[in-house]
């Protein structure tokens, strides 16, 4: 592993080591570039991942406070934790479930497909779908996604057998164990999934793809990666020419450091990426970096999520096996006759008892709730993940109420749900109820409102017209040539698919672009 000088102005500084930042760091270093990778969290390993759910949550989660407001249930249920993100080397790829469906062609043309919709700020993605699709396929091969490119699917768990029976009896046709970046056979130096059911606590066999033990060690092996852990970026600086030239960060001891940079790529997840751009305001850029269009932080999307639990009279043991190996694709269509535009997936999900009662069951206590818990062996669970519509007023701003331990305002998240999101959730709940009833459930329960977001998108979006967004199709900011955004912030719209696969695809594409531009002395 390399150690680059703070004064080395030839390095690329990548902020965040998750799906976008970790992949980008590998791609740039293997092309010969020197990279300083700043990660706010610590470095865990397969050996250090805790298998006690509460401890694992504390080990991987971003626990620094945020604030929130708006009509979404999150502002009431978990106001200081509006999003469940990771703060650790590998970012959310340590904690994700590996679910990797592709975006659909029509989803990337949301404005053209859905038309003008009141109170929504839809645009089309500025990338031809065929080009995006070729990078998505590259990402799938790299992540060894099941059911793609000849990879076997994962076997059916008990929980999936329930989902499958219900879904097929409802008449759904595209029902299977899903596209997952989880090894269905040993490959890539990683073992096959042994059905532990502890995907989100950190996969101790490494069967699940994470930049922590794929991209990052490979970048280190090039001798050109300087990974700095517990390094929290606080400000991106620029020169008189307006180009960025350094990143200020706090090191593990809380000391401020200043790393010079040739170019800067921000991949801190949509909340922190927008916050960092806003925190970096200056005399030249009084509204923050890359924000001449006033689009930074706006159009925040987090998907329409909801959990549904079916109570059966026979055992399911839903905790046994891969957490999310189950997918129904039939509702990912644009059929406004359903009462909303855009589509949603039904996905398998499982919960340990404490997570179940806190996240998946409706608010309650006493005999009725306890009777559901008494049936824990006999529960099955599914969730919906659907496209939410962007709104200019759903946005990340700097909190006026709360500061972090360095005295900097934390991210404030405001979301008012669009009527389209509400209609989609109602439809999804109805379908999930019917699914479990078709499988023989004696009772069905739905989670309250929307849980803390895990998919965070759109706060520095790609746009063909610089007035509509923050970056061009390569994630290069419209305002500053050597400032890039390399995470889900750049999604022009949310689409229904879980975002990680697309984030990796865009990072692969961005790395090629940066490399070409550097060779051509454009950067």
């Amino acid at each position, binding site marked *: 592993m390399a150690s680059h000088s703070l004064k080395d102005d030839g390095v690329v500084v990548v902020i965040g080591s998750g799906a976008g930042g970790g992949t980008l760091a590998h791609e740039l270093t293997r092309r010969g570039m020197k990279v300083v990778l700043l990660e706010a969290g610590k470095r865990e390993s397969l050996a250090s991942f805790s298998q006690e759910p509460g401890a694992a949550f504390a080990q991987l989660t971003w626990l620094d406070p945020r604030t929130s407001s708006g009509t979404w249930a999150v502002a009431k249920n978990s106001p200081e934790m509006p999003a469940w993100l990771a703060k650790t080397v590998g970012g959310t790829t340590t904690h994700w479930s590996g679910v990797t469906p592709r975006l659909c062609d029509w989803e990337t043309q949301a404005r053209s497909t859905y038309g003008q919709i009141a109170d929504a700020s839809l645009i089309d993605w500025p990338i031809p779908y065929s080009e995006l699709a070729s990078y998505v396929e590259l990402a799938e091969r790299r992540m060894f996604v099941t059911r793609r490119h000849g990879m076997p699917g994962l*076997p059916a768990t008990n929980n999936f057998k329930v989902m499958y029976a219900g879904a097929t009896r409802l008449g759904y046709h595209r029902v299977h164990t899903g596209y997952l970046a989880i090894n269905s056979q040993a490959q890539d130096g990683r073992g096959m999934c042994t059905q*532990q059911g502890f995907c989100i*606590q950190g996969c101790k066999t490494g069967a699940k793809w994470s930049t922590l033990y794929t991209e990052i060690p490979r970048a280190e092996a090039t001798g050109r990666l300087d990974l700095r852990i517990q390094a929290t970026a606080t400000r991106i600086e620029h020169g008189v020419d307006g180009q960025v030239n350094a990143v200020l960060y706090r090191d593990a001891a809380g000391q401020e450091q200043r790393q010079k940079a040739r170019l800067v790529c921000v991949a801190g997840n949509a909340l922190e990426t927008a916050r960092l751009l806003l925190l970096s305001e200056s005399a030249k850029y009084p509204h923050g970096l890359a924000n001449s269009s006033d689009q930074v932080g706006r159009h925040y999307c987090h998907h329409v999520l909801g959990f549904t639990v079916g109570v059966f009279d026979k055992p399911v043991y839903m905790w046994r096996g891969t957490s999310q190996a189950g997918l129904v694709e039939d509702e990912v269509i644009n059929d406004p006759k359903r009462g909303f535009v855009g589509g949603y997936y039904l996905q398998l999900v499982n919960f340990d*008892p*404490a997570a179940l009662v806190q996240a998946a069951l409706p608010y309650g206590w006493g005999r009725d709730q306890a009777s559901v818990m008494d049936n824990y062996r006999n529960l099955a669970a599914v969730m919906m993940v659907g496209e939410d519509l962007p709104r200019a007023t759903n946005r990340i701003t700097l909190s006026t109420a709360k500061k972090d331990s360095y005295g900097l305002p934390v991210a404030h998240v405001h979301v008012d749900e669009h009527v389209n999101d509400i209609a989609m959730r109602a439809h999804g709940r109805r379908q999930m109820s019917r699914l479990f009833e078709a499988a023989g459930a004696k009772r069905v329960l739905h989670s309250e409102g929307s849980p803390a977001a895990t998919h965070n998108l759109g706060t520095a979006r790609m746009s063909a017209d610089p007035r509509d967004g923050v970056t061009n199709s390569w994630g290069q900011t419209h305002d500053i040539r050597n400032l890039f955004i390399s995470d889900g912030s750049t999604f022009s719209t949310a689409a229904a698919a879980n975002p990680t696969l697309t984030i990796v695809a865009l990072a692969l594409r961005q790395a090629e672009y940066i490399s070409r531009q550097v060779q051509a002395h454009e950067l």
Partner: protein
Amino acid sequence: MKSRKAAERREFLKTTGVLTGILAVGGQFALLAPTRSWALDLHAFTSEQGEALLAAARTIAPHDALEDAAYAAVVHAADADALRDAPLRTSLTEGVAALGAGFARASEPERVAALKRIEAGEFFQRYRARTLGVLYSTPLAQAFLGYEGEAFTKGGYLLRGFNDLRWLPDVPEADAGPTLKSGA
């Protein structure tokens, strides 16, 4: 220096109350525990307050066959919270006082009624969340519910029942994936 720190720690950990109980004969843990009786020292609450908190936890998440020792874990967590956080300690102490002196020994309908009266308040909301989070993370409650927990140390559930459900049709291999045949 060392002895002063130890003295401060003794002061810090001064016992203010105690909860005691007996593990059920033939219960999951009675066979393993060195003795069947258990005691939990409290450092923020009196014994009476501890008993009220334990009764409140049992009312919030009532499982008749689940031993008091599991609910005592909730009281233990609340006691530690209160020791760390003075405003929370006040909120908990006042909340317990609002339940009335006879709460711990009241009938279940009476306890439910008492909690319903304060349901909207901060004490109940926080203590409900703490009860559910702590109780269902205890080994006692998890064993009671049948949850088997982490399986890494046992090689996963691959050969331990991840697909042993037989009351619904099996999924065709085309929609799932190859499975290890038993004995393979």
